[in-house]
């Protein structure tokens, strides 16, 4: 008996019945034997045979030769046998397409089976058979199943549409399955909704512009309802889909957030992270002074912390995402530093990520803890980790000024350990600290020099050489030290060679008498014996500089270097915004936009965070989102290559003199295209450029050159940013809307928009300062260049609280007219300098002349007449004001609001003549005659003034007042 013998066999195995028996092979040719068994009459034997076939298949053995025999077993009532055959079919149909057709009939029949489980199984399996010929037969059964009465079948069919689309997209579109799928989003069963969303999302990925997931408030509502009831996986699909929606206003945004927040307590971490994505995105639209905004911020921290107690793989993905979140909204996790402390048995990939986030969260408040931890890590076993920990200490010093001293002493302690790689890392970061805090910690140089011999990595050698060169005057034996490096010059890496060349030239400029020989030696090594073009070119430049103009050489080589920024490797804000929209995806793990690497998604759409709508932008409480009292130290270059500045100022400086005014203006254009990253280039370039001379020495001086020398360029750029801006017309009631004066791109993240107003005889400059950078801005001050009417700030710029990232502060600056006067071109141009802790920024804007129209500008009639006659006719200018639909009285009222006074009115032949006077702050009178013909929307304006230049601008004021 068959079963009896098997039973015995099982007993032999210790009465343990397992599938391993299916792997027993006989010598006789396995396939042959299986074939015989598959064709056996006995049902049981058949099933056992199919099991054996499947088992072989799972371990990758080729059993495709049995295809016809297995398919023959398909017509059966036994569900398990059917499933096993289906498994086999899915695997091998591709290689046996002709045979697979044989199975079609059974599939079609099964799709009609009274048992929904079988219907679903059939439609599911058919979709998995990736054979073109079969797909045609699939359409009809699929259409039926999509409308099946049983939700289990519908939900299976929904996925089948995605499968079919993968095999033959055209067919799916032609058959109208996509529309049916869209209808399923409104299905009554949440599971069906979730699967329809999943299928549509997958299809949409290969059709970026197809608008498949057309989200509107109704569908969103359906999705939110289904969200509460479907499986965890369905919730992920729905949340990811929700994240693509852009709410109409802050109300809708809030209501979606409210319904999504409970997902943060889900046990499935993928659900949590998808919910975080939705919230992070929609939060952007909420007004910051809303109570709910603060509540939401508080709710986000615990789930993120919880993700860190999960398995290490989950932790890794979570940490990569937290890294983004911390950069976007540091306030969420600022009190959670401790959860990022590294544990001894964390996998290395978790350790490195935690370290990175620790630095991002480091602030004055927690720096002591962080440093203690980092010091602990620096004695660990793992070399990569130790190196990163040492670097982290340096980053702390640069980021938190108050801690710099402690960091330096910690680094010195570490150098004392003499562990080779620790010493080298420490020296590399100390160099950065020198750059950040010049003339503060140079006392440690002696200790560093002791370790000169142990340095074998190029980066550390280059750093040490840089230090020796930079502080050559304080190191007694600098020449000896550098000479010792010079011996093996040709064996060094390019990085070290370049650095050595520069260092020796620096040394020569500082101590010319003793080092002449040395500098000649290095120059000849670099120019004659080297094949490296970079090295050679730099050698030649130095050589020529030194031989023609040592003073210029000094200015170039010893130029003051721009400061380095506090935070390195920050993600660029626009990329960060896009990545925030992709939280939880591969893009967020790689910190790259999806378009950069995901194959198969052709032309991915760039996602952006929604802009905030709704009101109350100005009424923002200043204490929201303030990240503690940490004062951001001055920082200039947002680049991490610290040596870069040093190199750039040489490599990019044009060797011949150029006209200074042209050069910066061109660079301004380039900067607009490339963003802040180029600042360093600009700063370094001008700082070191021989053509600019000492007057422009430091980097911040670059901008005034642009403004002074080429104002036209500045203005032109301004126009690009604020279309038609700068000539807004404030009246008693009307003030022009704010326009952007200083785009964030040009000012390291500070965006200034503003307008002018005259309120009750006081001139005010209303500005919104918006911090789009990553660090807090403080110490604001403002100054005007001399201008045509002597406008000057009447008091200091009142920005009382530090400006946190993403915060906007509105300020009103009262202006006086007692400042120094200089005629500008155009007349109403105003050049402004704004300073903060980061830098000084310059912009120019144009104020409406009506700002200067004083309240007592109403002339006596007699005086008016006399003056009118007195002013020569040559000074009269005529303008047309078009498309004004006001009668003369309304117009005159409107103008009066802006201190343009009507003195007399005459009506001649259906034409109203208004005589008007205006007085400027500097006492200049302007007389005007406005002719209004009933029925004609075009007014004629004649302006007479002793200073005819103003006429043009007065006309502009008229036009603005009348049109608004």
């Amino acid at each position, binding site marked *: 008996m068959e079963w009896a013998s098997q039973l015995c066999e099982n007993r032999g195995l210790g009465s343990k019945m397992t599938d391993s028996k299916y792997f027993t092979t006989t010598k006789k040719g396995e396939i042959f034997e299986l074939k015989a068994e598959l064709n056996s009459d006995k049902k049981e034997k058949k099933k056992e045979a199919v099991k054996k076939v499947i*088992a072989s298949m799972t371990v990758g053995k080729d059993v495709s030769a049995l295809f016809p025999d297995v398919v023959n077993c398909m017509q059966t009532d036994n569900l398990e046998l059917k499933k096993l055959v289906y498994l086999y079919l899915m695997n091998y149909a591709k290689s046996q397409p002709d045979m697979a057709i044989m199975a079609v009939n059974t599939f079609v029949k099964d799709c009609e089976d009274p048992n929904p489980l079988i219907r679903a199984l059939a439609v599911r399996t058919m979709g998995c058979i990736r054979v073109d010929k079969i797909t045609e037969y699939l359409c009809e059964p699929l259409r039926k199943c999509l409308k099946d009465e049983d939700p289990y079948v519908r939900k299976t069919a929904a996925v089948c549409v995605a499968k079919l689309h993968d095999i033959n997209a055209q067919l799916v579109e032609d058959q109208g399955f996509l529309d049916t799928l869209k209808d399923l989003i409104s299905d009554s069963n949440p599971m069906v909704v979730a699967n329809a969303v999943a299928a549509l999302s997958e299809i949409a990925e290969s059709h970026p512009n197809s608008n498949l997931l057309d989200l509107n408030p109704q569908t969103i509502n359906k999705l939110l309802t289904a969200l509460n009831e479907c499986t965890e996986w369905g919730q992920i699909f729905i949340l990811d889909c929700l994240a693509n929606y852009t709410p109409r206003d802050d109300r809708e945004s809030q209501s979606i957030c409210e319904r999504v927040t409970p997902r943060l307590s889900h046990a499935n971490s993928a659900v949590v992270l998808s919910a975080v994505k939705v919230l992070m995105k929609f939060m952007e639209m909420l007004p910051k002074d809303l109570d709910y905004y603060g509540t939401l911020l508080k709710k986000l921290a615990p789930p993120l912390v919880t993700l860190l107690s999960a398995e290490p793989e989950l932790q890794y993905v979570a940490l990569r995402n937290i890294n983004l979140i911390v950069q976007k909204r540091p306030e969420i996790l600022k009190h959670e530093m401790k959860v990022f402390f590294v544990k*001894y048995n964390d996998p290395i990939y978790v350790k490195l990520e935690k370290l990175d986030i620790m630095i991002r969260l480091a602030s004055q408040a927690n720096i002591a803890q962080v440093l203690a931890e980092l010091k602990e890590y620096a004695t660990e076993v793992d070399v990569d980790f130790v190196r990163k920990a040492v670097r982290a200490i340096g980053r702390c010093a640069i980021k938190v000024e108050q801690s710099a001293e402690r960091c330096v002493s910690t680094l010195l302690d570490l150098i004392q350990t003499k562990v080779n790689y620790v010493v080298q890392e420490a020296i590399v970061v100390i160099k950065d600290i020198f750059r950040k805090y010049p003339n503060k910690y140079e006392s440690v140089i002696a200790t560093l020099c002791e370790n000169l011999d142990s340095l074998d990595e190029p980066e550390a050698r280059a750093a040490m050489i840089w230090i020796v060169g930079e502080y050559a005057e304080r190191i007694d034996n600098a020449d000896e030290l550098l000479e010792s490096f010079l011996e093996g010059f040709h064996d060094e890496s390019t990085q070290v060679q370049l650095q050595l060349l520069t260092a020796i030239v620096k040394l020569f400029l500082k101590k010319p008498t003793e080092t002449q020989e040395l500098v000649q030696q290095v120059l000849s090594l670099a120019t004659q014996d080297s094949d490296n073009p970079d090295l050679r070119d730099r050698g030649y430049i130095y050589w020529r500089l030194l031989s023609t103009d040592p003073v210029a050489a000094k200015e170039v080589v010893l130029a003051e270097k721009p400061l380095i920024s506090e935070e390195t490797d920050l993600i660029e804000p626009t990329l960060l915004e896009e990545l925030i929209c992709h939280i939880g995806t591969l893009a967020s793990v790689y910190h790259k936009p999806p378009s950069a690497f995901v194959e198969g998604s052709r032309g991915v759409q760039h996602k952006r965070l929604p802009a905030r709508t709704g009101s109350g932008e100005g009424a923002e409480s200043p204490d929201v989102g303030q990240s503690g009292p940490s004062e951001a130290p001055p920082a200039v270059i947002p680049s991490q290559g610290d040596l870069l500045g040093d190199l750039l100022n040489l490599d990019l400086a044009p060797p011949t003199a150029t006209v200074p005014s042209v050069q910066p203006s061109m660079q301004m254009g380039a900067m607009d295209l490339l963003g802040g990253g180029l600042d360093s280039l600009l700063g370094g370039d001008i700082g070191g450029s021989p053509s600019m001379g000492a007057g422009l020495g430091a980097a911040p001086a670059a901008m005034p050159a642009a403004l002074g020398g080429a104002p036209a360029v500045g203005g032109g750029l301004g126009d690009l940013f604020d279309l038609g801006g700068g000539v807004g017309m404030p009246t008693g009631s009307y003030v022009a809307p704010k326009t952007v004066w200083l785009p964030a791109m040009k000012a390291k993240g500070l965006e200034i928009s503003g307008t002018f107003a005259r309120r009750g005889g006081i001139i005010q400059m209303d500005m919104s300062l918006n911090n789009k950078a990553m660090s807090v801005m403080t110490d604001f001050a403002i100054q005007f260049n001399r201008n045509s009417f002597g406008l000057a700030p009447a008091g200091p710029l009142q920005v009382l609280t530090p400006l946190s990232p993403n915060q906007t502060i509105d300020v009103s600056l009262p202006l006086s007219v007692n400042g120094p006067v200089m005629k500008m071109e155009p007349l109403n141009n105003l050049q402004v300098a704004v300073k903060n802790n980061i830098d000084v920024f310059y912009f120019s804007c144009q104020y409406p002349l009506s700002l200067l129209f004083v309240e007592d500008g109403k002339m006596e009639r007699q005086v008016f007449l006399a003056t009118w006659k007195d002013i020569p006719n040559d000074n009269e200018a005529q303008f047309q004001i078009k498309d004004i639909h006001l009668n003369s009285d309304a117009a005159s009222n409107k103008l009066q609001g802006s201190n343009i006074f009507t003195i007399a009115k005459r009506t001649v032949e259906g034409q109203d003549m208004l005589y008007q006077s205006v007085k400027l702050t500097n006492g200049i009178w302007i007389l005007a005659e406005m002719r209004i013909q009933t029925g004609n929307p075009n007014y004629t304006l004649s302006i007479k003034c002793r200073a005819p230049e103003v006429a043009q601008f007065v006309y502009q004021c008229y036009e603005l007042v009348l049109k608004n």
Partner: protein
Amino acid sequence: MIHSLFLINNAGDLFLEKHWKSVVSRSVCDYFFEAREKAVEPDNVPPVIRTPHHYLINIYREKIFFVSVIQTEVPPLFVIEFLHRVAETFQDYFGECSETTIKDNMVIVYELLEEMLDNGFPLATESNILKELIRPPTILRSMVNTITGSSNVGDTLPTGQLSTIPWRRAGVKYTNNEAYFDVVEEIDAILDKSGTTVFAEIQGVIDACVKLSGMPDLTLSFMNPRLLDDVSFHPCVRYKRWESERVISFIPPDGNFQLMSYHISAQNLVAIPIYVKQNISFFETGPSGRLDITVGPKQTMGKTVECLVVTVHMPKVVLSASLNATQGTYNYDPVTKILVWDIGKLNPQKLPNLKGSLSLQSGAPKPEENPSLNIDLKIQQLAISGLKVNRLDMYGEKYKPFKGVKYVTKAGKFQVRT
């Protein structure tokens, strides 16, 4: 979505592959092997590996790498969570998740994987539903099946999949109706040299074993729910009621499941049950060092600390250890450089001490790194956070269930620096 799954053992043998879409050649695993080699330790293999055409997302469980292949943008956490679910399902079905059991149950494994994912979309991942579809192997059933010819595949529609409570099957019947809850808390802590707490938090879970007939609706309440401000619930828990009333109201799945997990990070709530006095030093002169460790009770709330184990990862140059333990046994593995001291019960009257000398490789420099101590312990009948269940009420069914709650505290990642 998830394209394929490869199971690879520690030796680098690929012993199972499953494709849910088109077949991906197993040569894609070469990229994994490369990363595996680079990582040295299996734990350190990066979870996401990029290859020219695919992404490999992997987890490492029970000495098996679960390597999944994806081609388009898929949330990595989604994949990792799913892989964990696969490993848990194997564990659930076969008692352990190992290469041997997987190979022994190859056909069931294949059937399970087919049910769990359809075209890369998760289909049925709840153990309750899977067990209705595919019956787990038992010795008895396989014998009966062999005799009667019946199969281990269910032919009913998995009813739960469509109801609004997909986690529970219908028509559950027990003669003894019982519901047990285990409150398990793990202390994650880092103590520094001087014994000061650098960092401490509690990871708690409430595991449930509910065997109740019909459709019971349970409500669990705590004496001190305020302790819990960071919680994750099983999908069955009604979040609204938790938010408004701070009670856990749910219709339970049948059998074992994790009802909730929570996280307590407030330092003042985390009691550290023991202290460790240690001194591990290496001499500048001569190839030797000394070790002296004493463990004593700190905040144990009057309970006994059991299963106390101290593990020390020694520097590479330590060849052997000659120590004397006043209690328990110690073992030093010179290959992995791990010293394990198994203490057992902590007796507050006579504190356990381990003392003696370490011999180092001669000629090697004095080790730079400080070894770190990992502590393992267990305290019965105590949730260290002080969390206490108040009562469990059942609605919807008439019978009187038997109820029980157990508390236990363990050390999680409990580390003492030296």
